């Protein structure tokens, strides 16, 4: 190949043939091949990449729309599906701001003086998450709720020097799967604690915990939507010298529920998606991780702190970095580097938009509408609540129709039905997890009730 080899203009490539040849002359190379000489010929790809043909923007968007249109998304079907991801109303302001290119095309704020906007926004996110959870300190995000739970278990092991975690089966099964994957090679045993009547019984926690127990891991609201007795669980964990890790998959609930920091959680690990982030078929979301002041130095992930500049102005920097992999390498608290900063930014903007009263009010609307839906659905002959006890915006029904069949029927009526629980909980083959957020109107709930009534009869 020589300087005259073909070069196809492309809108993402400013280099012209003239640029290329002039730059090669400055370098002192005949062709780009000279620059690739260190790549041994035996490992070269001696052919063009066999990729599908180049698409122009309009072709590209049409092509992508053809994928998108084949999906049963929340503008096409009215969504009553939860189970770890939740459709909430996202105020327009959230992504108009988080979507500003000055934020989303930035890198990790390594040059703090140039990145005060991102750093301050992260500090504000950390602060708001502390207010929401009642904890002392929160990091600038983990990958997602499930991996945050895995990291929390490792953190508890490091803090207690114990090697067992006890996890309730009322914790989302995907979180438990990730937890097992995370600790498998670290010599940490996972003990699963069966749920009772849709909740985690403190008495069972007391029985299961021993001198090896580093942490008790529960979720509230749990996978069935049930609100756990946090104070009793915290006491049971504490009696065994174990930490209480509380997984929060639905942080909007904390608008009305007692925060884990108040009932005695040592670590809160959870999913921040409901705070202003799109469903997006599972990601990008953000893992929330918050803990007590005393545990900061065993915490994984980035932290933003306040400092001052040479002139005494307040400023923000990444701090306590000696916990992290780029300094400590194999002795770091975690290998995490890239996190979910943009999603945390959106969560921060969402929380600030809601404010003190808005978050409480939106949580109330969730609880009231879910309560209404639960009452109406359980009035349908043959449909009953699987568990008693309080819930926030999700609840399990047992239906006379197979839940997967029922969902197929509902899809025909323009409804995305609840989660069929049988795959996760074989003892609940007729278990159907229904979610009702503030994004569901009374009319939509009534339409669901009518459709379910017909569906279970069909």
């Amino acid at each position, binding site marked *: 190949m020589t300087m005259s080899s073909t070069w196809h203009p492309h809108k993402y490539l400013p280099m012209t043939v003239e640029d290329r040849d002039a730059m090669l002359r400055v370098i002192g190379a005949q062709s780009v091949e000279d620059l690739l000489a260190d790549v041994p010929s035996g490992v070269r790809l001696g052919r063009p990449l066999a990729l599908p043909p180049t698409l122009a923007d309009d072709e590209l968007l049409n092509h992508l729309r053809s994928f998108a249109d084949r999906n049963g998304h929340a503008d096409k079907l009215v969504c009553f599906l939860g189970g770890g991801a939740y459709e909430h109303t996202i105020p327009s302001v959230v992504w108009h701001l988080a979507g500003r290119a000055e934020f989303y095309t930035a890198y990790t704020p390594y040059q703090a003086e140039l990145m005060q906007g991102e750093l301050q926004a992260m500090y504000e996110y950390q602060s*708001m998450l502390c207010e929401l959870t009642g904890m002392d300190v929160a990091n600038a995000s983990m990958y997602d709720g499930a991996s945050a739970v895995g990291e929390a278990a490792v953190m508890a092991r490091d803090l207690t020097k114990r090697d067992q975690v006890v996890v309730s089966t009322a914790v989302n099964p995907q979180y438990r799967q990730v937890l097992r994957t995370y600790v498998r090679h670290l010599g940490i045993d996972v003990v699963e604690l069966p749920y009772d009547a849709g909740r985690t019984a403190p008495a069972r926690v007391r029985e299961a915990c021993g001198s090896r127990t580093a942490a008790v891991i529960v979720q509230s609201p749990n996978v069935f939507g049930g609100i756990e007795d946090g104070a009793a669980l915290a006491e049971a964990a504490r009696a065994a010298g174990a930490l209480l890790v509380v997984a929060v998959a639905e942080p909007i609930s904390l608008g009305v529920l007692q925060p884990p920091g108040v009932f005695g959680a040592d670590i809160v690990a959870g999913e921040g998606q409901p705070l202003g982030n799109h469903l997006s078929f599972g990601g990008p979301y953000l893992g929330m991780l918050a803990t007590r002041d005393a545990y900061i130095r065993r915490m994984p992930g980035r932290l933003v702190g306040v400092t001052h500049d040479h002139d005494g102005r307040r400023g923000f920097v990444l701090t306590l970095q000696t916990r992290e*992999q780029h300094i400590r390498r194999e002795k770091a608290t975690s290998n995490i580097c890239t996190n979910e900063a943009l999603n945390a930014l959106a969560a921060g903007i969402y929380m600030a938009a809601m404010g003190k009263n808005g978050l409480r009010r939106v949580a109330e609307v969730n609880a009231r509408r879910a309560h209404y839906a639960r009452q109406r659905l359980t009035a349908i002959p043959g449909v009953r609540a699987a568990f008693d006890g309080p819930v926030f915006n999700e609840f399990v029904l047992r239906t006379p129709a197979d839940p997967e069949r029922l969902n197929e029927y509902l899809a025909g009526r323009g409804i995305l039905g609840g989660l069929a629980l049988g795959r996760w909980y074989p003892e609940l083959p007729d278990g159907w997890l229904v979610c009702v957020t503030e994004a569901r109107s009374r009319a939509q709930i009534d339409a669901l009730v009518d459709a379910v009534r017909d569906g279970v009869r069909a």
Partner: protein
Amino acid sequence: MTPESFPLIFERNTPGRIAVSIPDAGVPDVPLDEIIGATHLRRDPAALPEVSELDLVRHYTQLSQRNYAIDVGFYPLGSCTMKYNPKVNEDAARLSGFARLHPNTPAALAQGALELLWQLEQMLCEISGMHRVTFQPAAGAHGELTALMMIRAYFDERGERRTRVIVPDSAHGTNPASAAMCGFTVVTVPSDSRGNIDSAALRRAADSSVAALMLTNPNTLGLFEEHITEVADIMHGCGALMYLDGANFNAVLGVTRPGDQGFDVMHMNVHKTFSTPHGGGGPGAGPVAVKRLLEPYLPAPTIERDGDAFRLDEDRPKTIGRVRAFNGNFGIYVRAYAYLRAYGPLLRQVSEAAVINANYLLTRLRPFFDVPYDRTCMHEFVLSGRRQKTRYGVRTLDIAKRLLDYGIHAPTIYFPLIVDEAIMIEPTETESRQTLDAFADALIHVAQECETDPETVKTAPHRTVVSRLDEVTAARQPNLRWRPPTTTGVAR
């Protein structure tokens, strides 16, 4: 705090303001304590700021103006591949059919999403020379962990107890950290005088206790491992596997494939190579591609095609399990897919331009800085500020801070660890010759200032919204959150 400090959102708080509209419940009114139970109710509302919508808009807009980003200017961060993030990709990810698709949607109602991932898997396999891909890992380091777990599962099944992982001394910090999280002992092997991994040292370290070599290629010096075939032979000769840290994949697209170089498994940083935005630190995505021998251990579920239908396959008896809930950072993969379709077979030009740009900058800067490993570079190169430090007492940190005064983000500094006063520069293919020249002029000017006016450099930056920040105080007296004032007016 001085009057010049930019206010926190909490300092804009005015009780009674709100930035959202919230519907009435519109259902029969039942007291909340009957629904939830009084003991579970929150007593004090979270002390979130109370602001109007316009207060909120101005606050975050002004914060964005106190930030630097690719759309603002050049971002030569070595090893980070800060290329342009195409706008059409953002439009694609925001299509309702993607952005508003629930991850628990039954596969029959998510065929478009599953097919997109399946098609992306085919493209990534072609580009990498591998056979299967998992999309679960949310970032490069997450991919490293996933890959090492698969490697461990592979040896466990064969009944081989291999406890060590080799990394070169030029490796990213995530490599040893990931190995430790997978229960491996880390063995560090030095680099040779040309910047390759020292093959004699590698030979000495390679034995039946080694599970894998974690290698970045081109490595973090921006140099292609000249003896890559020999390295692969050494590792395979002792029964170990070859892991590629794909952080520098942008250098070799369509030129050489990791699978053909002898790697058995790799992760890709789609937020580097495939143009998805870094988001101020994330989200990324770290898909892991494997050869057939590791396929049984992939995280479940994988995406399978049956005729015209696509499904999630949970039935994988040898899987390492899940590393993340749901289907990975799907929205990021939509962008990566769009990027690859916008290039198609022209993808090789990305790497050609990246390599030309890097060598052009190296040529322009070589006279002004030490170049510890002076070879033709690939997509990035590493200078040393040793000369400036010994002659003028100006550290690389100072040079980086001074560059900020020229409105340019600094290169990566003090990495890789094997270069004294390292300055690691990666221009990427999306920058024009004019931009490269402006950057080279600025850096050369700073190099001259080190000689003529070192004080200005040592006290930089001078033109940013804050001057140099005191990181020591931040770490010694951690203040990691705002706290609401108590009734006495003192923070609790």
